[in-house]
């Protein structure tokens, strides 16, 4: 169990987070040979958490607003971010892999920090995220099952949207004028910010 802290300096001049430490390495019995990593960032995340939570496909996010705890289902594992700057990463090959993955998130966190500082953070999506399901999205799609997006049905497509495996611009019919009302209802449901996150490029 005993180990001394492993500190990794990632972004020398990162506006918010610069380094991350691995505070504990535990066996992850869920999968043989994998480990569970406890990590600690060099800064708290209270301020950026709501924005950070909005940066991911809703289907991959589990956010507890009153605690500001973000749990992501990504990279074939569960990763939890805590406002104190603590991170728990399950099902990880080794510390190196963990750090590689976390570096990407630290970059995102720093971006979110800049946004929140410059005030153009946009709306707080954290409340919204939990409420949007595939059916809500499906209802706003053309529902023609045209397969132009490469997915058999519009229902399957809306699920892929939420999981981040498809983007809105792949739905060609949406760009047609006669479907403007669909686009509007989508915007109503998601808001511009999420529309952008889900890959909407039209207007």
């Amino acid at each position, binding site marked *: 169990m*005993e180990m001394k802290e492993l500190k990794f300096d990632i972004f020398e001049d990162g506006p918010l987070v610069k380094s991350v430490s691995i505070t504990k390495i535990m066996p992850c019995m*869920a999968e043989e040979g994998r480990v569970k990593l*406890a990590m600690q960032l060099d800064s708290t995340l209270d301020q950026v958490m709501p924005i950070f939570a909005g940066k991911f496909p809703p289907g991959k996010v589990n956010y507890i607003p009153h*605690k500001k*705890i973000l749990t992501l289902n990504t990279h074939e594992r*569960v990763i*939890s971010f805590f406002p*104190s700057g603590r991170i*728990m990463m399950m099902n990880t090959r080794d510390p190196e892999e963990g750090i590689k993955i976390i570096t990407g998130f630290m970059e995102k966190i720093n971006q979110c920090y800049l946004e929140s500082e410059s005030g153009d953070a946009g709306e707080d999506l954290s409340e919204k995220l939990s409420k949007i399901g595939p059916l809500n999205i499906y209802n706003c799609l053309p529902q023609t099952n045209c397969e132009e997006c490469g997915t058999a049905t519009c229902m399957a497509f809306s699920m892929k949207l939420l999981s981040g495996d498809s983007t809105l611009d792949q739905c060609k019919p949406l760009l047609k004028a006669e479907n403007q009302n669909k686009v509007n209802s989508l915007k109503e449901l998601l808001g511009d910010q999420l529309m952008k996150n889900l890959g909407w490029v039209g207007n």
Partner: protein
Amino acid sequence: MSSLLVIIDKAPYGHENALSGIYIAIASLDRGMDSDVLLMGDGVYAAQKNQSADKTIGYPSVSELIYSIFPNGTLFVHLDSLTQRGMKYEDLVEIAELIDGKTLHELSKSKKHIIKI
């Protein structure tokens, strides 16, 4: 699916129980059980944040280990036990959820197994 509630009512470090109770919770969660940990009585001290047992007395820090049950398992802290000890929600590790008697009754009734360690 089987389910479990582990009740810890002893303070950490003075006894091995808190640590051992958390290990049972972690193991059952890893095995896909719907498990949670409940801290009652002196057990609530296990949720005190900023413990540093590893660096001081060389014991694995319970407040560190307890994070391993998150997010699949919940760390419940018995509200009355907490207030009796003059502690506040802010004193606790982030994953701690306060629970009152009525909610606890519902929770415990939903469990197949309950062990007090």
